Protein backbone atom coordinates (compact mmCIF):
# COMPACT_ATOMS: atom_id res chain seq x y z
CA UNK A 1 0.00 0.00 0.00
CA UNK A 2 1.18 3.54 -0.74
CA UNK A 3 2.09 6.01 1.93
CA UNK A 4 -0.64 5.65 4.52
CA UNK A 5 -1.13 9.28 5.37
CA UNK A 6 -1.53 10.21 1.69
CA UNK A 7 -4.04 7.43 1.15
CA UNK A 8 -5.90 8.36 4.34
CA UNK A 9 -6.09 12.00 3.28
CA UNK A 10 -7.24 10.97 -0.17
CA UNK A 11 -9.99 8.69 1.19
CA UNK A 12 -11.24 11.38 3.54
CA UNK A 13 -11.18 13.95 0.72
CA UNK A 14 -13.07 11.75 -1.75
CA UNK A 15 -15.43 9.95 0.64
CA UNK A 16 -18.04 12.72 0.45
CA UNK A 17 -18.28 12.32 -3.33
CA UNK A 18 -18.54 8.53 -3.03
CA UNK A 19 -21.31 8.86 -0.45
CA UNK A 20 -23.20 11.10 -2.85
CA UNK A 21 -22.76 8.56 -5.66
CA UNK A 22 -23.99 5.67 -3.46
CA UNK A 23 -27.12 7.69 -2.68
CA UNK A 24 -27.79 8.72 -6.26
CA UNK A 25 -27.27 5.14 -7.52
CA UNK A 26 -29.83 3.89 -4.99
CA UNK A 27 -32.21 6.67 -5.96
CA UNK A 28 -31.84 6.14 -9.73
CA UNK A 29 -32.29 2.39 -9.33
CA UNK A 30 -35.62 2.89 -7.62
CA UNK A 31 -36.97 5.06 -10.42
CA UNK A 32 -37.89 4.15 -13.97
CA UNK A 33 -36.93 7.55 -15.39
CA UNK A 34 -34.28 10.19 -14.80
CA UNK A 35 -34.12 13.82 -15.85
CA UNK A 36 -31.44 15.02 -18.27
CA UNK A 37 -29.64 16.77 -15.40
CA UNK A 38 -29.65 13.59 -13.32
CA UNK A 39 -28.36 11.55 -16.25
CA UNK A 40 -25.57 14.04 -16.97
CA UNK A 41 -24.61 14.19 -13.33
CA UNK A 42 -24.49 10.35 -13.22
CA UNK A 43 -22.15 10.36 -16.23
CA UNK A 44 -19.96 12.99 -14.58
CA UNK A 45 -19.89 10.93 -11.37
CA UNK A 46 -18.97 7.87 -13.44
CA UNK A 47 -15.97 9.65 -14.89
CA UNK A 48 -14.85 10.85 -11.47
CA UNK A 49 -15.29 7.37 -10.05
CA UNK A 50 -13.20 5.89 -12.87
CA UNK A 51 -10.35 8.21 -11.90
CA UNK A 52 -10.70 7.29 -8.22
CA UNK A 53 -10.80 3.60 -9.04
CA UNK A 54 -7.68 3.84 -11.17
CA UNK A 55 -5.92 5.64 -8.31
CA UNK A 56 -7.10 3.15 -5.73
CA UNK A 57 -6.12 0.16 -7.89
CA UNK A 58 -2.61 1.59 -8.16
CA UNK A 59 -2.18 2.62 -4.52
CA UNK A 60 -4.03 -0.16 -2.72
CA UNK A 61 -4.98 -2.93 -5.14
CA UNK A 62 -6.28 -5.45 -2.59
CA UNK A 63 -7.94 -3.05 -0.19
CA UNK A 64 -11.61 -2.78 0.70
CA UNK A 65 -11.57 0.76 -0.65
CA UNK A 66 -10.73 -0.61 -4.10
CA UNK A 67 -13.33 -3.38 -3.74
CA UNK A 68 -15.95 -0.81 -2.77
CA UNK A 69 -15.03 1.44 -5.66
CA UNK A 70 -15.08 -1.52 -8.09
CA UNK A 71 -18.59 -2.38 -6.94
CA UNK A 72 -19.83 1.19 -7.11
CA UNK A 73 -18.25 1.67 -10.53
CA UNK A 74 -19.96 -1.50 -11.83
CA UNK A 75 -23.32 -0.38 -10.45
CA UNK A 76 -23.02 3.04 -12.04
CA UNK A 77 -21.84 1.51 -15.31
CA UNK A 78 -24.89 -0.77 -15.44
CA UNK A 79 -27.13 2.15 -14.61
CA UNK A 80 -25.85 4.57 -17.23
CA UNK A 81 -25.62 1.86 -19.91
CA UNK A 82 -29.34 1.20 -19.61
CA UNK A 83 -31.22 1.77 -22.83
CA UNK A 84 -34.53 3.58 -22.55
CA UNK A 85 -37.63 1.55 -23.29
CA UNK A 86 -38.84 2.23 -26.81
CA UNK A 87 -42.59 2.00 -26.20
CA UNK A 88 -44.84 2.32 -29.24
CA UNK A 89 -42.02 3.51 -31.49
CA UNK A 90 -40.00 0.38 -30.75
CA UNK A 91 -43.03 -1.81 -31.45
CA UNK A 92 -43.58 -0.05 -34.76
CA UNK A 93 -39.90 -0.46 -35.65
CA UNK A 94 -40.20 -4.14 -34.80
CA UNK A 95 -43.16 -4.53 -37.15
CA UNK A 96 -41.79 -2.31 -39.90
CA UNK A 97 -38.10 -3.20 -39.88
CA UNK A 98 -36.98 -6.10 -37.69
CA UNK A 99 -39.63 -8.69 -38.53
CA UNK A 100 -39.63 -8.09 -42.32
CA UNK A 101 -35.81 -8.09 -42.36
CA UNK A 102 -35.67 -11.39 -40.47
CA UNK A 103 -38.37 -12.92 -42.67
CA UNK A 104 -36.52 -11.78 -45.79
CA UNK A 105 -33.29 -13.27 -44.52
CA UNK A 106 -35.01 -16.57 -43.78
CA UNK A 107 -37.17 -16.79 -46.91
CA UNK A 108 -35.25 -19.66 -48.50
CA UNK A 109 -35.20 -21.57 -45.22
CA UNK A 110 -38.93 -20.99 -44.74
CA UNK A 111 -39.51 -22.48 -48.20
CA UNK A 112 -37.21 -25.35 -47.27
CA UNK A 113 -39.13 -26.04 -44.07
CA UNK A 114 -42.45 -25.92 -45.95
CA UNK A 115 -41.01 -28.42 -48.42
CA UNK A 116 -39.79 -30.65 -45.59
CA UNK A 117 -43.19 -30.55 -43.94
CA UNK A 118 -44.97 -31.31 -47.23
CA UNK A 119 -42.58 -34.18 -48.01
CA UNK A 120 -43.05 -35.58 -44.50
CA UNK A 121 -46.82 -35.30 -44.87
CA UNK A 122 -46.66 -37.28 -48.12
CA UNK A 123 -44.45 -39.83 -46.41
CA UNK A 124 -46.93 -40.04 -43.50
CA UNK A 125 -49.81 -40.52 -45.94
CA UNK A 126 -47.89 -43.29 -47.75
CA UNK A 127 -46.93 -45.05 -44.51
CA UNK A 128 -50.51 -45.20 -43.21
CA UNK A 129 -51.97 -46.11 -46.60
CA UNK A 130 -49.48 -48.96 -46.93
CA UNK A 131 -49.35 -50.08 -43.27
CA UNK A 132 -52.64 -48.94 -41.62
CA UNK A 133 -51.73 -50.59 -38.33
CA UNK A 134 -48.98 -48.01 -37.85
CA UNK A 135 -51.56 -45.30 -37.12
CA UNK A 136 -50.94 -46.06 -33.42
CA UNK A 137 -47.60 -44.29 -33.88
CA UNK A 138 -49.32 -41.04 -34.83
CA UNK A 139 -52.65 -41.03 -33.03
CA UNK A 140 -53.93 -41.87 -29.57
CA UNK A 141 -56.33 -44.71 -28.80
CA UNK A 142 -59.27 -42.40 -28.15
CA UNK A 143 -58.75 -40.61 -31.44
CA UNK A 144 -58.53 -43.90 -33.38
CA UNK A 145 -61.67 -45.18 -31.70
CA UNK A 146 -63.60 -42.04 -32.64
CA UNK A 147 -62.57 -42.27 -36.30
CA UNK A 148 -63.32 -46.01 -36.48
CA UNK A 149 -66.84 -45.20 -35.28
CA UNK A 150 -67.18 -42.72 -38.15
CA UNK A 151 -66.78 -39.54 -36.08
CA UNK A 152 -63.97 -37.00 -35.82
CA UNK A 153 -62.50 -36.60 -32.32
CA UNK A 154 -63.21 -32.90 -32.66
CA UNK A 155 -66.98 -33.39 -32.85
CA UNK A 156 -68.77 -32.18 -29.78
CA UNK A 157 -65.51 -31.07 -28.21
CA UNK A 158 -67.05 -27.72 -27.23
CA UNK A 159 -69.73 -29.57 -25.28
CA UNK A 160 -67.02 -31.06 -23.07
CA UNK A 161 -64.64 -28.11 -22.77
CA UNK A 162 -65.67 -24.43 -23.15
CA UNK A 163 -64.26 -22.71 -26.26
CA UNK A 164 -62.32 -20.17 -24.21
CA UNK A 165 -60.52 -22.88 -22.23
CA UNK A 166 -59.96 -24.88 -25.39
CA UNK A 167 -58.45 -21.82 -27.10
CA UNK A 168 -56.04 -21.13 -24.27
CA UNK A 169 -54.92 -24.75 -24.11
CA UNK A 170 -54.44 -24.94 -27.87
CA UNK A 171 -52.58 -21.65 -28.18
CA UNK A 172 -50.31 -22.49 -25.24
CA UNK A 173 -49.50 -25.87 -26.78
CA UNK A 174 -48.86 -24.37 -30.22
CA UNK A 175 -46.62 -21.65 -28.83
CA UNK A 176 -44.56 -24.22 -26.95
CA UNK A 177 -44.20 -26.33 -30.13
CA UNK A 178 -43.07 -23.30 -32.16
CA UNK A 179 -40.64 -22.09 -29.51
CA UNK A 180 -39.29 -25.61 -29.24
CA UNK A 181 -38.88 -25.80 -33.03
CA UNK A 182 -36.84 -22.59 -32.80
CA UNK A 183 -34.80 -23.47 -29.73
CA UNK A 184 -34.11 -27.03 -30.93
CA UNK A 185 -32.01 -25.38 -33.61
CA UNK A 186 -29.24 -25.26 -31.00
CA UNK A 187 -28.66 -28.97 -31.70
CA UNK A 188 -27.01 -27.95 -34.97
CA UNK A 189 -30.44 -27.57 -36.56
CA UNK A 190 -31.20 -31.28 -36.26
CA UNK A 191 -33.74 -30.83 -33.48
CA UNK A 192 -35.70 -28.44 -35.67
CA UNK A 193 -35.63 -30.81 -38.65
CA UNK A 194 -36.92 -33.58 -36.41
CA UNK A 195 -39.79 -31.51 -35.03
CA UNK A 196 -40.94 -30.16 -38.39
CA UNK A 197 -40.68 -33.55 -40.07
CA UNK A 198 -42.56 -35.19 -37.21
CA UNK A 199 -45.38 -32.64 -37.51
CA UNK A 200 -45.57 -33.30 -41.26
CA UNK A 201 -45.59 -37.07 -40.75
CA UNK A 202 -48.38 -36.83 -38.20
CA UNK A 203 -50.44 -34.55 -40.42
CA UNK A 204 -50.09 -36.84 -43.45
CA UNK A 205 -50.62 -39.99 -41.40
CA UNK A 206 -53.74 -38.71 -39.67
CA UNK A 207 -55.18 -37.44 -42.96
CA UNK A 208 -54.59 -40.85 -44.58
CA UNK A 209 -56.25 -42.57 -41.64
CA UNK A 210 -59.36 -40.37 -41.67
CA UNK A 211 -59.47 -40.70 -45.48
CA UNK A 212 -59.67 -44.48 -45.09
CA UNK A 213 -62.77 -43.95 -42.94
CA UNK A 214 -64.32 -41.33 -45.24
CA UNK A 215 -63.67 -38.40 -42.91
CA UNK A 216 -60.97 -36.50 -44.81
CA UNK A 217 -63.42 -33.79 -45.91
CA UNK A 218 -64.59 -33.31 -42.32
CA UNK A 219 -61.03 -33.00 -41.06
CA UNK A 220 -60.22 -30.55 -43.85
CA UNK A 221 -63.28 -28.51 -42.84
CA UNK A 222 -62.04 -28.55 -39.24
CA UNK A 223 -58.50 -27.37 -39.92
CA UNK A 224 -58.92 -25.01 -42.86
CA UNK A 225 -59.73 -21.96 -40.68
CA UNK A 226 -56.68 -22.17 -38.42
CA UNK A 227 -54.41 -24.68 -40.16
CA UNK A 228 -52.80 -22.52 -42.88
CA UNK A 229 -51.38 -20.00 -40.39
CA UNK A 230 -50.63 -22.62 -37.74
CA UNK A 231 -48.61 -24.78 -40.13
CA UNK A 232 -46.93 -21.76 -41.71
CA UNK A 233 -45.90 -20.51 -38.27
CA UNK A 234 -44.29 -23.86 -37.49
CA UNK A 235 -42.35 -23.55 -40.77
CA UNK A 236 -41.28 -19.98 -39.89
CA UNK A 237 -40.18 -21.01 -36.38
CA UNK A 238 -38.42 -24.01 -37.89
CA UNK A 239 -36.61 -21.77 -40.38
CA UNK A 240 -35.46 -19.57 -37.50
CA UNK A 241 -34.25 -22.70 -35.68
CA UNK A 242 -32.34 -23.88 -38.74
CA UNK A 243 -30.70 -20.45 -39.03
CA UNK A 244 -29.69 -20.78 -35.39
CA UNK A 245 -28.15 -24.19 -36.04
CA UNK A 246 -26.39 -22.88 -39.12
CA UNK A 247 -24.91 -20.01 -37.12
CA UNK A 248 -23.16 -22.62 -34.98
CA UNK A 249 -22.12 -24.93 -37.80
CA UNK A 250 -20.94 -22.11 -40.08
CA UNK A 251 -20.28 -19.05 -37.90
CA UNK A 252 -20.55 -15.80 -39.80
CA UNK A 253 -18.87 -13.76 -37.05
CA UNK A 254 -15.65 -14.24 -35.09
CA UNK A 255 -16.68 -17.09 -32.82
CA UNK A 256 -19.51 -19.61 -32.85
CA UNK A 257 -20.84 -18.03 -29.69
CA UNK A 258 -20.88 -14.53 -31.20
CA UNK A 259 -22.48 -15.85 -34.35
CA UNK A 260 -25.11 -17.77 -32.36
CA UNK A 261 -25.91 -14.73 -30.25
CA UNK A 262 -26.17 -12.40 -33.25
CA UNK A 263 -28.41 -14.87 -35.07
CA UNK A 264 -30.68 -15.33 -32.04
CA UNK A 265 -31.12 -11.55 -31.77
CA UNK A 266 -31.77 -11.21 -35.52
CA UNK A 267 -34.43 -13.89 -35.81
CA UNK A 268 -36.06 -13.62 -32.36
CA UNK A 269 -38.53 -10.89 -33.48
CA UNK A 270 -40.06 -13.49 -35.80
CA UNK A 271 -40.78 -15.68 -32.81
CA UNK A 272 -42.67 -12.83 -31.20
CA UNK A 273 -44.84 -12.52 -34.30
CA UNK A 274 -45.28 -16.30 -34.41
CA UNK A 275 -46.51 -16.29 -30.81
CA UNK A 276 -48.97 -13.47 -31.57
CA UNK A 277 -50.26 -15.29 -34.67
CA UNK A 278 -50.66 -18.50 -32.71
CA UNK A 279 -52.81 -16.68 -30.17
CA UNK A 280 -55.13 -15.85 -33.07
CA UNK A 281 -54.97 -19.45 -34.29
CA UNK A 282 -55.86 -20.67 -30.81
CA UNK A 283 -58.99 -18.53 -30.73
CA UNK A 284 -60.03 -19.64 -34.23
CA UNK A 285 -59.42 -23.27 -33.28
CA UNK A 286 -61.36 -22.88 -30.07
CA UNK A 287 -64.31 -20.85 -31.29
CA UNK A 288 -64.65 -21.37 -35.08
CA UNK A 289 -63.16 -24.74 -36.06
CA UNK A 290 -65.21 -27.01 -33.76
CA UNK A 291 -68.45 -25.04 -34.25
CA UNK A 292 -70.65 -26.78 -36.86
CA UNK A 293 -72.59 -23.55 -37.50
CA UNK A 294 -69.71 -22.17 -39.61
CA UNK A 295 -70.01 -23.33 -43.24
CA UNK A 296 -66.96 -24.37 -45.24
CA UNK A 297 -66.97 -21.10 -47.23
CA UNK A 298 -66.69 -19.01 -44.02
CA UNK A 299 -63.88 -21.22 -42.78
CA UNK A 300 -61.97 -20.89 -46.05
CA UNK A 301 -62.46 -17.11 -45.94
CA UNK A 302 -61.22 -16.88 -42.35
CA UNK A 303 -58.26 -19.17 -43.05
CA UNK A 304 -57.16 -17.38 -46.21
CA UNK A 305 -57.68 -13.87 -44.78
CA UNK A 306 -55.67 -14.75 -41.69
CA UNK A 307 -52.94 -16.21 -43.87
CA UNK A 308 -52.82 -12.98 -45.91
CA UNK A 309 -52.53 -10.98 -42.67
CA UNK A 310 -49.63 -13.21 -41.66
CA UNK A 311 -47.94 -12.69 -45.01
CA UNK A 312 -48.48 -8.92 -44.80
CA UNK A 313 -46.91 -8.88 -41.35
CA UNK A 314 -43.94 -10.99 -42.42
CA UNK A 315 -43.32 -8.83 -45.48
CA UNK A 316 -43.81 -5.62 -43.49
CA UNK A 317 -46.57 -4.42 -45.80
CA UNK A 318 -49.23 -4.21 -43.09
CA UNK A 319 -47.40 -1.49 -41.20
CA UNK A 320 -45.33 -0.04 -44.05
CA UNK A 321 -44.62 3.67 -43.76
CA UNK A 322 -46.70 5.13 -46.62
CA UNK A 323 -44.93 8.49 -46.40
CA UNK A 324 -41.56 6.95 -47.27
CA UNK A 325 -40.93 7.18 -51.04
Amino acid at each position, binding site marked *: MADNSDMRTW*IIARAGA*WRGIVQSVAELRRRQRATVEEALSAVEAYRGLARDLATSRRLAPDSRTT*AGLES*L*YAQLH*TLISHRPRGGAAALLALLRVDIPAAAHELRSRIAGMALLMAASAVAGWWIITTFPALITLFAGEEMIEHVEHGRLWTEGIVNITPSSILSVRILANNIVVSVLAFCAG*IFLGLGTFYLVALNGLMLGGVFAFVHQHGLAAALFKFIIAHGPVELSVICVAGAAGVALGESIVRPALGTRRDSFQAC*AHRVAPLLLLCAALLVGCGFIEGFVSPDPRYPLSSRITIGSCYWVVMWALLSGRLFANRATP
Partner: protein
Amino acid sequence: MADDQIFVHSATGVDLTLTVAGPGSRGYAFVIDWHIRLLLAGAWLLLASFVLKLSLSARSQDALLSLLPAAVIYFLYHPILEVALRGRTPGKRMAGLVLVNRSGGTPGTAALLIRNLFRLIDSLPAFYVVGLVSCFFTANRVRIGDMAAGTLLVLGDAAAGKSLSHLETLAAGSRLPLDALELVDQVLERWASLEPRHRSQIACMLLARLEPGSDAAHLSTLSDMELHARVAALLDGGDAQAHEPAAGDEATSG
Protein backbone atom coordinates in the same frame (compact mmCIF):
# COMPACT_ATOMS: atom_id res chain seq x y z
CA MET B 1 -10.91 -17.09 -9.02
CA ALA B 2 -9.26 -15.17 -11.82
CA ASP B 3 -11.08 -17.38 -14.32
CA ASP B 4 -14.39 -16.18 -12.90
CA GLN B 5 -13.57 -12.52 -13.43
CA ILE B 6 -14.12 -10.74 -16.69
CA PHE B 7 -12.87 -7.34 -17.68
CA VAL B 8 -15.06 -5.04 -19.70
CA HIS B 9 -13.72 -2.01 -21.54
CA SER B 10 -15.51 1.17 -20.63
CA ALA B 11 -15.69 4.60 -22.21
CA THR B 12 -13.51 6.07 -19.45
CA GLY B 13 -10.59 3.78 -20.26
CA VAL B 14 -10.79 2.18 -16.82
CA ASP B 15 -11.83 -1.45 -17.22
CA LEU B 16 -14.79 -2.79 -15.36
CA THR B 17 -14.16 -5.95 -13.32
CA LEU B 18 -17.12 -8.30 -13.08
CA THR B 19 -17.14 -11.47 -11.02
CA VAL B 20 -19.13 -14.17 -12.78
CA ALA B 21 -21.62 -16.09 -10.65
CA GLY B 22 -21.00 -19.83 -10.49
CA PRO B 23 -23.54 -22.65 -10.68
CA GLY B 24 -23.93 -22.54 -6.89
CA SER B 25 -25.07 -18.91 -6.72
CA ARG B 26 -27.24 -19.43 -9.79
CA GLY B 27 -28.85 -22.49 -8.27
CA TYR B 28 -29.42 -20.65 -5.00
CA ALA B 29 -31.17 -17.76 -6.79
CA PHE B 30 -33.23 -20.17 -8.88
CA VAL B 31 -34.38 -22.16 -5.85
CA ILE B 32 -35.51 -18.96 -4.10
CA ASP B 33 -37.41 -17.85 -7.20
CA TRP B 34 -38.89 -21.32 -7.63
CA HIS B 35 -40.23 -21.25 -4.08
CA ILE B 36 -41.65 -17.77 -4.58
CA ARG B 37 -43.49 -18.66 -7.77
CA LEU B 38 -44.71 -21.94 -6.32
CA LEU B 39 -46.04 -20.15 -3.24
CA LEU B 40 -47.66 -17.40 -5.31
CA ALA B 41 -49.32 -19.87 -7.68
CA GLY B 42 -50.43 -22.01 -4.75
CA ALA B 43 -51.75 -18.96 -2.90
CA TRP B 44 -53.80 -17.95 -5.94
CA LEU B 45 -55.26 -21.46 -6.25
CA LEU B 46 -56.22 -21.43 -2.57
CA LEU B 47 -57.77 -17.98 -2.94
CA ALA B 48 -59.65 -19.03 -6.06
CA SER B 49 -60.87 -22.23 -4.50
CA PHE B 50 -61.78 -21.19 -0.96
CA VAL B 51 -62.46 -17.46 -1.14
CA LEU B 52 -63.73 -16.90 -4.68
CA LYS B 53 -65.34 -20.37 -4.73
CA LEU B 54 -64.14 -21.08 -8.28
CA SER B 55 -63.88 -24.56 -9.72
CA LEU B 56 -60.36 -25.89 -10.28
CA SER B 57 -61.44 -28.25 -13.05
CA ALA B 58 -59.57 -27.72 -16.33
CA ARG B 59 -62.82 -28.27 -18.24
CA SER B 60 -64.80 -25.63 -16.40
CA GLN B 61 -65.28 -22.02 -17.48
CA ASP B 62 -63.88 -21.02 -14.07
CA ALA B 63 -60.46 -22.31 -15.12
CA LEU B 64 -59.84 -18.96 -16.86
CA LEU B 65 -59.89 -17.26 -13.48
CA SER B 66 -58.56 -20.05 -11.30
CA LEU B 67 -56.02 -22.17 -13.19
CA LEU B 68 -54.89 -19.70 -15.85
CA PRO B 69 -53.55 -17.00 -13.47
CA ALA B 70 -51.76 -19.68 -11.45
CA ALA B 71 -50.21 -21.09 -14.63
CA VAL B 72 -49.20 -17.60 -15.75
CA ILE B 73 -47.56 -16.91 -12.37
CA TYR B 74 -45.69 -20.21 -12.43
CA PHE B 75 -44.60 -20.34 -16.06
CA LEU B 76 -44.16 -16.64 -16.89
CA TYR B 77 -42.65 -15.55 -13.56
CA HIS B 78 -39.13 -15.21 -14.94
CA PRO B 79 -39.84 -13.43 -18.24
CA ILE B 80 -42.32 -11.00 -16.68
CA LEU B 81 -40.22 -10.12 -13.65
CA GLU B 82 -36.93 -9.96 -15.54
CA VAL B 83 -38.38 -7.56 -18.11
CA ALA B 84 -40.16 -5.47 -15.48
CA LEU B 85 -37.25 -5.35 -13.02
CA ARG B 86 -34.48 -5.11 -15.62
CA GLY B 87 -33.15 -8.59 -15.06
CA ARG B 88 -33.41 -8.65 -11.27
CA THR B 89 -35.80 -11.18 -9.76
CA PRO B 90 -36.28 -11.46 -6.00
CA GLY B 91 -34.17 -14.64 -6.00
CA LYS B 92 -31.27 -12.96 -7.77
CA ARG B 93 -31.54 -9.98 -5.45
CA MET B 94 -31.39 -12.20 -2.37
CA ALA B 95 -28.48 -14.17 -3.80
CA GLY B 96 -26.67 -10.90 -4.61
CA LEU B 97 -26.66 -11.51 -8.36
CA VAL B 98 -27.09 -9.04 -11.18
CA LEU B 99 -27.92 -9.84 -14.78
CA VAL B 100 -25.85 -7.78 -17.22
CA ASN B 101 -25.06 -7.87 -20.90
CA ARG B 102 -21.59 -8.62 -22.16
CA SER B 103 -20.62 -4.96 -21.95
CA GLY B 104 -21.68 -4.75 -18.32
CA GLY B 105 -24.87 -2.80 -19.01
CA THR B 106 -28.51 -3.57 -18.31
CA PRO B 107 -29.80 -6.15 -20.82
CA GLY B 108 -32.55 -5.00 -23.17
CA THR B 109 -36.04 -6.44 -23.36
CA ALA B 110 -35.19 -8.52 -26.45
CA ALA B 111 -32.20 -10.10 -24.73
CA LEU B 112 -34.26 -10.88 -21.63
CA LEU B 113 -36.99 -12.51 -23.71
CA ILE B 114 -34.47 -14.57 -25.70
CA ARG B 115 -32.83 -15.66 -22.44
CA ASN B 116 -36.16 -16.90 -21.19
CA LEU B 117 -37.15 -18.62 -24.45
CA PHE B 118 -34.16 -20.90 -24.11
CA ARG B 119 -35.31 -22.09 -20.69
CA LEU B 120 -37.13 -24.73 -22.72
CA ILE B 121 -33.77 -26.18 -23.76
CA ASP B 122 -31.91 -25.43 -20.53
CA SER B 123 -34.53 -27.26 -18.49
CA LEU B 124 -34.13 -30.47 -20.55
CA PRO B 125 -34.44 -33.32 -19.74
CA ALA B 126 -35.45 -32.29 -16.20
CA PHE B 127 -34.30 -30.03 -13.36
CA TYR B 128 -32.29 -27.73 -15.66
CA VAL B 129 -29.68 -30.41 -16.34
CA VAL B 130 -28.66 -28.94 -19.71
CA GLY B 131 -28.36 -25.45 -18.21
CA LEU B 132 -26.41 -26.69 -15.22
CA VAL B 133 -23.98 -28.73 -17.32
CA SER B 134 -23.55 -25.72 -19.58
CA CYS B 135 -22.74 -23.54 -16.53
CA PHE B 136 -20.03 -25.97 -15.46
CA PHE B 137 -18.32 -26.16 -18.83
CA THR B 138 -18.62 -22.72 -20.41
CA ALA B 139 -16.01 -20.01 -19.97
CA ASN B 140 -18.28 -17.46 -18.30
CA ARG B 141 -20.45 -20.03 -16.53
CA VAL B 142 -23.47 -19.29 -18.68
CA ARG B 143 -26.43 -21.42 -19.64
CA ILE B 144 -27.60 -21.69 -23.24
CA GLY B 145 -30.17 -18.93 -22.76
CA ASP B 146 -27.42 -16.56 -21.65
CA MET B 147 -25.29 -17.51 -24.65
CA ALA B 148 -28.15 -16.73 -27.01
CA ALA B 149 -29.07 -13.48 -25.28
CA GLY B 150 -25.51 -12.33 -24.63
CA THR B 151 -26.13 -11.97 -20.91
CA LEU B 152 -24.05 -12.79 -17.86
CA LEU B 153 -24.98 -13.35 -14.26
CA VAL B 154 -22.47 -11.55 -12.07
CA LEU B 155 -22.01 -11.00 -8.37
CA GLY B 156 -23.21 -7.54 -7.41
CA ASP B 157 -21.79 -6.54 -4.07
CA ALA B 158 -24.02 -3.63 -3.13
CA ALA B 159 -22.71 -3.65 0.44
CA ALA B 160 -19.15 -3.03 -0.78
CA GLY B 161 -20.22 0.31 -2.26
CA LYS B 162 -21.95 1.32 0.93
CA SER B 163 -18.88 0.39 2.99
CA LEU B 164 -17.01 3.29 1.35
CA SER B 165 -18.69 5.85 3.54
CA HIS B 166 -17.96 3.68 6.57
CA LEU B 167 -14.27 3.65 5.62
CA GLU B 168 -14.22 7.42 5.67
CA THR B 169 -15.37 7.43 9.30
CA LEU B 170 -12.75 4.83 10.18
CA ALA B 171 -9.97 6.65 8.34
CA ALA B 172 -10.80 9.90 10.08
CA GLY B 173 -11.18 8.39 13.54
CA SER B 174 -8.23 6.02 13.86
CA ARG B 175 -4.48 6.35 13.63
CA LEU B 176 -4.02 2.75 12.45
CA PRO B 177 -2.58 2.20 8.99
CA LEU B 178 -5.32 1.79 6.40
CA ASP B 179 -4.65 -1.87 5.63
CA ALA B 180 -4.74 -2.71 9.35
CA LEU B 181 -7.85 -0.61 9.74
CA GLU B 182 -9.63 -2.50 6.98
CA LEU B 183 -8.52 -5.78 8.46
CA VAL B 184 -9.80 -4.93 11.95
CA ASP B 185 -13.06 -3.73 10.46
CA GLN B 186 -13.47 -6.98 8.51
CA VAL B 187 -12.74 -9.10 11.57
CA LEU B 188 -15.34 -7.20 13.58
CA GLU B 189 -17.84 -7.51 10.75
CA ARG B 190 -17.38 -11.28 10.59
CA TRP B 191 -17.01 -11.76 14.35
CA ALA B 192 -20.36 -13.43 14.88
CA SER B 193 -19.90 -15.84 11.99
CA LEU B 194 -16.44 -17.02 13.07
CA GLU B 195 -15.83 -20.00 15.33
CA PRO B 196 -15.08 -18.69 18.87
CA ARG B 197 -11.72 -20.53 18.92
CA HIS B 198 -10.66 -19.06 15.57
CA ARG B 199 -11.81 -15.54 16.30
CA SER B 200 -9.92 -15.57 19.60
CA GLN B 201 -6.77 -16.64 17.75
CA ILE B 202 -7.23 -13.92 15.13
CA ALA B 203 -7.99 -11.29 17.76
CA CYS B 204 -4.87 -12.23 19.78
CA MET B 205 -2.70 -12.02 16.66
CA LEU B 206 -4.17 -8.65 15.71
CA LEU B 207 -3.80 -7.19 19.19
CA ALA B 208 -0.26 -8.49 19.52
CA ARG B 209 0.66 -6.70 16.31
CA LEU B 210 -1.33 -3.52 16.66
CA GLU B 211 -1.40 -2.76 20.38
CA PRO B 212 1.92 -1.47 21.62
CA GLY B 213 3.27 -3.40 24.59
CA SER B 214 0.56 -6.05 24.68
CA ASP B 215 1.51 -9.34 26.21
CA ALA B 216 0.65 -12.45 24.18
CA ALA B 217 0.34 -14.62 27.28
CA HIS B 218 -2.06 -12.15 28.89
CA LEU B 219 -4.12 -11.83 25.70
CA SER B 220 -4.69 -15.57 25.59
CA THR B 221 -6.36 -15.41 29.03
CA LEU B 222 -8.95 -12.82 27.95
CA SER B 223 -12.56 -13.84 27.36
CA ASP B 224 -14.28 -13.66 23.99
CA MET B 225 -16.13 -10.46 24.91
CA GLU B 226 -13.01 -8.79 26.25
CA LEU B 227 -11.12 -9.61 23.08
CA HIS B 228 -13.96 -8.17 21.00
CA ALA B 229 -13.94 -4.97 23.04
CA ARG B 230 -10.13 -4.64 22.72
CA VAL B 231 -10.27 -5.19 18.94
CA ALA B 232 -13.13 -2.69 18.60
CA ALA B 233 -11.11 -0.17 20.60
CA LEU B 234 -8.43 -0.32 17.91
CA LEU B 235 -10.78 1.49 15.55
CA ASP B 236 -11.12 4.42 17.94
CA GLY B 237 -7.44 4.88 18.54
CA GLY B 238 -4.60 2.63 17.45
CA ASP B 239 -0.92 3.22 17.08
CA ALA B 240 0.54 3.41 13.62
CA GLN B 241 4.09 2.84 14.82
CA ALA B 242 3.28 -0.56 16.29
CA HIS B 243 2.13 -2.03 13.03
CA GLU B 244 4.42 -3.99 10.76
CA PRO B 245 3.49 -4.29 7.07
CA ALA B 246 3.11 -8.08 7.16
CA ALA B 247 0.52 -8.04 9.94
CA GLY B 248 -2.49 -7.95 7.67
CA ASP B 249 -1.36 -10.78 5.43
CA GLU B 250 -0.49 -13.08 8.30
CA ALA B 251 -3.70 -12.42 10.15
CA THR B 252 -5.73 -13.02 7.00
CA SER B 253 -4.08 -16.34 6.30
CA GLY B 254 -4.53 -17.35 9.95
